[in-house]
Each structure stands twice: as structure tokens, then as C-alpha cells.
């Protein structure tokens, strides 16, 4: 719904830096090439779990062109390299610094490490068994017991939600569904492997160029890792070749900085694709047992279950409330464990934990609908959180956002009205996400020609700067093409939070609007002097300031900006710093249509409708693009993706051939529906957009498969083998 009173906001504007990107001129982190630059390469553990008996670096050091070899011993008590224990395949053991990448690679192979291999835990279900191998020696774990009083292994964190009378609700239920779901580690697989370059300067400061979602976040993390002050570091963020949450955290930035300080020369460390898989920050897998109860009328009365998060060496736990999701459920008993496994600690991947939990929750709800003979759309509408309800995130909803998004999706997909053939089916699933907000900023200055320069510390991940330019153009009534937005590094702008959690456009968009309003006020004040009128009698329209009712007495923005350079108050500028802004949840609904070949188990995605409650689309084209991309990722988790670990805890598919992501022929056109009902706190009514699209896709495919062939596949990805196995199982039953 474009708002007719707006000129720039709400328009389908192409990326402002698009021409640079499409001609190959935009610099990404690995494009940084400095004089005298050295190349670092990490020696990584080949074992999932082992003790290091000894490391011999003598041969590597002797190789011509090797400048430095760093092991834990050289790090003076820092924990950036494994000292005694390697805890996952890919754990960092040493860094070689050499004149070129080939020498570094050769030298890494000359380092001799004597390992004593230990037992490893790579599956959370097996990993908690009282007799399972200890994943991380000496790590502090929770004392949680099984029904026989035996202590579970490797449980790093535990939480629970207990509400109402669950047992009574199950006793009174008309239908109960209980299933076990599994999901594997899932890699973000951005196309740009991480690369960073550090340059130590005389005087002790270090500049770091890197691909990241937040320069200040990286600055704090490097400072923490190296135990130095943040002020010693300048982090320069570059155009980011995809992150999806992974680039919130460090890859080898601390190692590059450390190596540059030691060698006094710039050091680049490029992670290759295999290293990305072994030592990135993928989404966690999980094991879920979920039991859901409903009454005849479809109202969900109870949810009970346990989730074991595959938490890597950190044993990271997830958000338990996601198993309940955006529905009103009175009785809940849920328990969540963060289980340590011999894998890298998982990171964020768009709406962390939400796709995995949606798979379980939305499959169970679907099964209940089928048991009770209720339409899957109706059961969701019946239980959806509504206007006036309080969400698990603690906000009271002002609209029927979810219900309206479900209806919009159903309408677009012609739910119940399409003639499906044999072995074809349609499935629906929903997701919710409450975006964050965080410190950010916008600084605006007008040039003599009326062009507008904006500076922000907020990293652009999918068009944020274009949206900021649209907002500034809107307020100052100039064409978007007159506005440029620059990303400031940590020496140039105040602390800015991550571009993650769907908060960038929400927060930085607000900063841009407020800063532009400030500039507008200055502009009117300055024009008032020129036009000899009171600022209150002036209006700004179409790039001109004029006296209200006297359009002939006017002056252009350019003229005002130009004359301000010499005025008593100085140039026309505006600035705004955001701390936190209140937020609301937003909702996404996917309807997938699939065809299943019962002979081979192959699932073919025929159609996907992705509807999302976006508040207000600041740039519908960019919003649709984010939704299409997120939905594709979720569908891929549903049908083809997942990291595979062997018995020894080694990754078996650490390359893009074996870890296949969707190609163009794998996907249909994704049809998006934007539900725009406004959100009072976001800029122009916008909500966060980036996370919700990835939540429901996998579950929608699972439900479509059920609709097509009557079996429920409960393990991701739903590969042909698993579909065939489910069909075979159904025949036996």
C-alpha cells in the first residue's frame, strides 16, 4: 500500500551503491591489499576431541618466506589458540604468518602436532547420556538428573517454563499429538568467506578491516580476546558479502591483530570455504520431543516437552518460548537443555532457533488439525495471539497482525480453492519475531549544491543505507539521488550496535529521520533569514523553502545550504543518536505447495507464498527481496541442507558440493505478500524485516508433504531417503 503523501519512502528504489557493486568496484574485505602485507593461515585440529601432547614448529619456521609461527605458548596466557585440548575439528592450534598464502599453507603442513585422541559427543541426545564422553574437559555443567537419579553429561545450561495445569489439560484433551523432531547444524553459507586484514601502527594502535555486521562489536571482541583497550583498535567495516548473523562474531580478527602487532607488518587472514564449515558460527541443531493437546473446537490447551540444543563447545541454550510460538496456550511445561558437543559454538542465523522450533510446533499443530478434522488455517486463526493479548516478549498487541497475515497468505495461495493433483499437497506454517533495537546514529550535512551527505556507524546488510537515504530525502524533500550514505568506522562515529536481529532499518531509520528533521529545522531557520520571514511561516516542499501562501518568495535547498556556510550558525546539519526504541513482534506465514514422488521420495516445490507483517515497507522491492531470500534458506533447511558429522565427529560435507544450497533451477518464483498495518514506534510505521522470513518455510514444506502423501517427516532436512522411509513406515503400520 504505497502512501500517496510520501515521495521517497515506500518507493521501489534500487540499491544506491548498486552501480558500484555491479561493476565490481565495491571493496569487500578480501579486496584489501596493502604494501608489505603478510598472509596468515591457521593450523586446525583434524580431530573432534583430543589432547595436545606436543607441537613442533621447527620445520615450519625454517621454510623460506615464513615470518612467524604462533602457538598458544607465544600468546602469553591469551586463549586464542588451543593449549592442551582441541574441542572440535577445526579448533585453532597455530597461526603461520608468511610472505604469501602458498608459503603459509606449506608451512602449516610442516607443523607436527602429537595428539591423544579422546571420545567425542556430536549429538545432543547421545551427548547427555550419563556415560557419554565428556565434550569439554573441566567445563562447568549443570547438575541435571535422569529419572534414575543419574547425572546427565554435558548439560551446560537448563531452563524451563511451567504454567497452568498441564496434566489436567492433557487428561481433558480431545486430541493429543506427540512427536520427536531433529534438526542438524545449519550453515549460513553466505557467499563471502570471512577475510580480515590488520595493520599495527607505530604508537600501538591497530587498524582492522573486516567483513562484519558490527564494527564496534568486533572491536570489543578483539579487545577482550587480546586483553587490550578498545581505544587501541580502529575497526573499518567493509561491504559485507552476506552474514545472516554469523558475522556478528569473530573469525580470525584477533589472530590477525595479534600477528600484526608481533610482526609489525599488515597481516591478512582469509578463511577458505572448508574452514568456514569447520570453524564458522552455524545455527545449532536440536532434538525435540513435543506433545500438544487440543479441544474439539481446535483450541490448543497444553504444550509439554523437552528440547536439547546441540550447543557446541559452549553448550548454548535456546529460547524455550518458541516451542509455544505466537499462540495462546494456557498450560505449558517445557524444559530446555543447552548441551555441549564437540562442534564450534553455534552462532546466530536469522531468527536464531526459530526455524528449528517452528518445525516441531507447526507440525504438531498441523497434525492436531488433521486429527480433529479442522482446516490448518482455522486452527491457527483460532489460537493466534490477537489484539489485546500479551506476547511472550511482554508486549500487548495493538492489532490482529498474525491473523491478518494468515488470511493474506491464504488468499494469495488460493487456499482450499486450487485443484491439487494426486501426490500434491499444500502446507502452512507461521512464525514470529520481535526485533531488537540498539544504539545507532545518523549525522547529516548539506553541501552547497543541495546534496546531502549522511554518515552512520550502522553496517548495511541488505540495503539499509538506501532506506536511510530514502528517509532523509523524504524529510528534506530532495530526490533520493541527491543523498549519499557513508559507513563510518569506529574512529569516526560513536558506538553503534550490530546490524542483526532485524533492527538495523528500524533503529538507524529512526536516527536518519530524526537527524533529517533536525537538518530541516536548521534549513528553515536559515531560509527565514534569507526570506525575511519567521520560520513558522515557511514550508519546505519539492526542494524549495517558500513563504506559506506566497510561493514566489522562495529559495532552493541548495541556496540555503550554500549561504549557510557563511552564516553565524554555520552549515546546515542534523544528527541523532538512538539508544533503544520500543519494539513489537512481526509475523510471517508461508504456504508451500509440493509434489512428492512416492517412488523416490523426491519433493518438488511447486509454489511458495510468503506473507509478512512488515508494518510499513520503506522500500517494498528490498523487503520482498529479503523475504524471498529468507524463505529460500528455510525451504533449503527443510529439503536439502544440514551439516553431517561422522562417528569421529568430523564434518563430512565441508564444501559447497556436498553441502548443497539451492541453485536457481531448484527454486520457483517466490510470491510475497506484504501486510502493512503500521507499527507506532518504527520509522514511518516500519517493523524489522530480516528475521521472520526464515522461520516457517521448512515447517510449511513438512505440512505440505503430509497433505500430499499422508506422512509426517520429522527430521530435517526432509531428504528423499527420509520421505521414502516415512512412507515405508506408514505402509507397515
Amino acid at each position, binding site marked *: 500500500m504505497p502512501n500517496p503523501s510520501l515521495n521517497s519512502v515506500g518507493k521501489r528504489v534500487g540499491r544506491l551503491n548498486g552501480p558500484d557493486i555491479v561493476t*565490481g568496484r565495491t571493496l569487500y574485505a*578480501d579486496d584489501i591489499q596493502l604494501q608489505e602485507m603478510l598472509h596468515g593461515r591457521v593450523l586446525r585440529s583434524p580431530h573432534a576431541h583430543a589432547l595436545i601432547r606436543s607441537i613442533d614448529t621447527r620445520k615450519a619456521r625454517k621454510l623460506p618466506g615464513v615470518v612467524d609461527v604462533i602457538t598458544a605458548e607465544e600468546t602469553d596466557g591469551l586463549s586464542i589458540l588451543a593449549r592442551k585440548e582441541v574441542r572440535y575439528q577445526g579448533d585453532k592450534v597455530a597461526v603461520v604468518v608468511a610472505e604469501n598464502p602458498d608459503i603459509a599453507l606449506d608451512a602449516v603442513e610442516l607443523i607436527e602436532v602429537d595428539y591423544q585422541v579422546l571420545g567425542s559427543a556430536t549429538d545432543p541426545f547421545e551427548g547427555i547420556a550419563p556415560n557419554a564422553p565428556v565434550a569439554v574437559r573441566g567445563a562447568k555443567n549443570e547438575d541435571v538428573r535422569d529419572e534414575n537419579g543419574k547425572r546427565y553429561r554435558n548439560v551446560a545450561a537448563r531452563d524451563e517454563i511451567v504454567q497452568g495445569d498441564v496434566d489436567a489439560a492433557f487428561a481433558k484433551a480431545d486430541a493429543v499429538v506427540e512427536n520427536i523432531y531433529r534438526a542438524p547444524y545449519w550453515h549460513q553459507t553466505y557467499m563471502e568467506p570471512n577475510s580480515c586484514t590488520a595493520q599495527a601502527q607505530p604508537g600501538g594502535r591497530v587498524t582492522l578491516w573486516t567483513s562484519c555486521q558490527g564494527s564496534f562489536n568486533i572491536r570489543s571482541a578483539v579487545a577482550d580476546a587480546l586483553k587490550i583497550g578498545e581505544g587501541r583498535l580502529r575497526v573499518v567495516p567493509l561491504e559485507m558479502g552476506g552474514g545472516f548473523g554469523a558475522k556478528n562474531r569473530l573469525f580470525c580478527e584477533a589472530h590477525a591483530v595479534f600477528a600484526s602487532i608481533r610482526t609489525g607488518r599488515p597481516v591478512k587472514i582469509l578463511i577458505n570455504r572448508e574452514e568456514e564449515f569447520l570453524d564458522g558460527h552455524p545455527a545449532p541443531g536440536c532434538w525435540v520431543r513435543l506433545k500438544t493437546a487440543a479441544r474439539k473446537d481446535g483450541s490448543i490447551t497444553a504444550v509439554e516437552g523437552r528440547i536439547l540444543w546441540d550447543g557446541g563447545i559452549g553448550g548454548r541454550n535456546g529460547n524455550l518460548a518458541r516451542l509455544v510460538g505466537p499462540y495462546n496456550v494456557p498450560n505449558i511445561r517445557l524444559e530446555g537443555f543447552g548441551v555441549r558437543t564437540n562442534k564450534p559454538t553455534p552462532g546466530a542465523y536469522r531468527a536464531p532457533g526459530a526455524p528449528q522450533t517452528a518445525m516441531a510446533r507447526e507440525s504438531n499443530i498441523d497434525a492436531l488439525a488433521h486429527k480433529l478434522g479442522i482446516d490448518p488455517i482455522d486452527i491457527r486463526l483460532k489460537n493466534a495471539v490477537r489484539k489485546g493479548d500479551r506476547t511472550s516478549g511482554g508486549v500487548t498487541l495493538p492489532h490482529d497482525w498474525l491473523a491478518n497475515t494468515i488470511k493474506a497468505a491464504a488468499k494469495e495461495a488460493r487456499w482450499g480453492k486450487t485443484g491439487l493433483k494426486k501426490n500434491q499437497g499444500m502446507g502452512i506454517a507461521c512464525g514470529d519475531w520481535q526485533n531488537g533495537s540498539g544504539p545507532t546514529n545518523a549525522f547529516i550535512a548539506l553541501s552547497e549544491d543541495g546534496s546531502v551527505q549522511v554518515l552512520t556507524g550502522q553496517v548495511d546488510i*541488505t540495503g539499509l543505507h538506501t532506506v536511510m537515504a530514502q528517509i532523509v530525502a523524504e524529510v528534506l524533500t530532495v530526490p533520493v539521488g541527491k543523498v549519499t550514505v557513508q559507513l563510518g568506522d569506529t574512529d569516526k562515529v560513536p558506538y553503534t550496535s550490530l546490524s542483526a536481529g532485524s533492527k538495523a532499518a528500524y533503529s538507524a531509520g529512526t536516527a536518519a529521520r530524526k537527524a533529517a528533521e533536525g537538518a530541516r529545522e536548521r534549513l528553515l531557520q536559515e531560509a527565514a533569514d534569507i526570506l525575511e520571514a519567521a520560520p513558522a511561516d515557511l514550508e519546505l516542499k519539492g526542494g524549495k523553502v517558500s513563504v506559506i501562501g506566497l510561493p514566489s518568495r522562495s529559495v532552493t535547498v541548495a541556496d540555503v545550504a550554500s549561504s549557510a556556510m557563511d552564516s553565524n550558525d554555520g552549515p546546515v546539519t542534523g544528527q541523532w543518536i538512538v539508544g533503544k526504541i520500543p519494539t513489537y513482534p512481526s509475523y510471517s506465514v508461508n504456504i508451500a505447495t509440493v509434489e512428492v514422488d512416492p517412488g523416490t521420495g523426491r519433493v518438488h516445490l511447486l509454489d511458495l507464498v510468503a506473507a509478512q507483517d512488515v508494518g510499513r515497507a520503506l522500500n517494498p522491492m528490498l523487503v520482498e527481496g529479503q523475504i524471498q531470500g529468507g524463505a529460500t534458506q528455510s525451504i533449503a533447511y527443510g529439503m536439502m541442507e544440514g551439516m553431517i558429522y561422522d562417528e569421529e565427529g568430523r564434518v563430512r560435507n565441508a564444501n*559447497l558440493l556436498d553441502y548443497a544450497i539451492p541453485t536457481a533451477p531448484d527454486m520457483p518464483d517466490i510470491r510475497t505478500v506484504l501486510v502493512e498495518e503500521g507499527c507506532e514506534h518504527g520509522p514511518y510505521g516500519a517493523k524489522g524485516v530480516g528475521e521472520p522470513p526464515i522461520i516457517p518455510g521448512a515447517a510449511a514444506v513438512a505440512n505440505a508433504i503430509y497433505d500430499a502423501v499422508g506422512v509426517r517427516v520429522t527430521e530435517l532436512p526432509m531428504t528423499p531417503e527420509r520421505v521414502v522411509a516415512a512412507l515405508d513406515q506408514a505402509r507397515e503400520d
Partner: protein
Amino acid sequence: MTHDIELTVNGVAHSVSVEPRKTLLSVLRDQLHMTGTKEGCSTGDCGACTVILDGKTVTSCLVLGVEADGSDVTTIEGIATCEELHPVQEAIVEKGGVQCGFCTAGIIVSSVALLNENPKPTPDQIRRGLAGNLCRCTGYTKVIEAVTDAAKKIKKPARRKVSKRK
């Protein structure tokens, strides 16, 4: 031990001394400092490093520098002049076919080559023509829209424009 090779990149002749194990991708990026061509995997699986070599698209991470001796290479830097974008480039921006942009060089080079061979492809043919170019951000819908749109705008098969940039 290095080999001296000669190759033409975007219409400009270069002689380069290359180590036998260096790929064409590395020659372009590290020795000729043309960093528009990207490395997403180095195993031939992502297509980010796609260039046109003697009229055919190749993944330059799988071509050795020495193999490119005597050949004619077009990279992303040679698709447009500074003033005028190629219709594919223009459409990718205007239709929202670019998000992070890391796959974009490869997608554009492959699309330009596809349209040279088949000026009026169907959406399905475009999808198949881009099967070797992974994009993680867009889900491809807007990429396909953009290439379809560009095809409409190109009257004749696209001419290769030579970059004025040195």
C-alpha cells in the same frame, strides 16, 4: 619458478609472471589487482569467480594462470564502461537482484554470456543458465526478473564493451 604469460583482459594486453600453481582468479585479483571477480569457494562450486575466457564462461578458480596464456578474458570490470551500465547490470540494480553483492559479478558475467548466446531466453532457460552461480541472499526470484527484463531491453545481442579503466 614462474612462467611468463600474456593475456588480454577487458581489451587490455598484459604480460604476467605466474607461479605454476596460481589460478587465473588469483592472477586477476592478486597480480592484476582486478578484485571485482570474487572467490566464494575455490573449488568450482559457487560461480562467484565466473569470467568469460575466449568466449566461454569458466570458473576462474579452476583455470590455472598458465592455461590462460594467450587468451582473451572478460571480467566484471569489462562489462560496462564507467558512464554506461550494461542492461543486465542496470536491471540487477533496478529490479533488486542484488543484496550482499558477492555473487553479483559472477551472476552478471554468466547472464551476459547467456544473453549473447540466447537473446530471448525463457525464465526457465535463465534459471538453467545460472545454475552454476550460487546466490544465498535473493532466492533468485528478483535475479531472474532482472535478467528477463534486461533481455527485453537488449535489441541486438549484447556487444562486449571495453572498459576505459586501466
